[in-house]
């Protein structure tokens, strides 16, 4: 599974993506974020206020409790500033 990072989150991590294989205990996107943060101090710090982020699964924004089944690409999206 590919995890994408954008904007200042990408800069703070110094990379745009990771290829990960989460354990079976990771069932939702929320679980995935917890697991990623537990393995990466920089991500953990950058996501200290986690609910400001939106998540996408296969290029659709979805709720945090969305099951991870079928996820090929997950993105962690800092607050958006378009328009």
């Amino acid at each position, binding site marked *: 599974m590919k995890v994408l990072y*954008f*904007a200042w989150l990408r800069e703070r991590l110094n990379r745009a993506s990771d290829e990960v294989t989460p354990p079976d205990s990771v069932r939702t996107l929320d679980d995935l974020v917890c697991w990623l943060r537990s393995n990466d101090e920089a991500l953990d710090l950058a996501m200290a206020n986690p609910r400001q982020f939106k998540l*996408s699964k296969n290029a*659709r*924004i979805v709720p945090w409790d969305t099951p991870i089944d079928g996820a090929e690409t997950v*993105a962690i*999206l800092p607050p958006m*500033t*378009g*328009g």
Partner: protein
Amino acid sequence: MILVSASPFDPGALLAAFAADHPHAGAAVTFTGMVRSSPDRPINALILECYPELAENEIATLRGRAIERFGLIDAAILHRYGRLVPGEAIMQVMTLAAHRQAAFDGAQFLMDYLKTDAPFWKQEETASGTQWVEANTADDAARDRWAK
């Protein structure tokens, strides 16, 4: 029409072409967002980062919701990414309806959601370097007034 692109666009030409496709519309509303450099806060450029595939999907969903909710005849959304200089158009929303109120409301709805729910991130390039633009809570409030 939905277009997420790094290429510049001509706001007036787009409106003329869009409106010409729908001769039965009685009202057209256009909003064009521009790169701003003010005297008290001058910038050299605005750099927009984007997740294009997600942007196209989310904008398509918003467009469908706006058409259904306000009974629009059509709606078009264009959004650029990449490096833009002051005066350039960043994005444009165009709505067509039988009457003006629906066209105004549809455009406002789309703008309010695009600010907070479309995956674009602005970075200002100034004489002293680049800074990410912070999300504005007033934008969240503007979007939330449409929730029902």
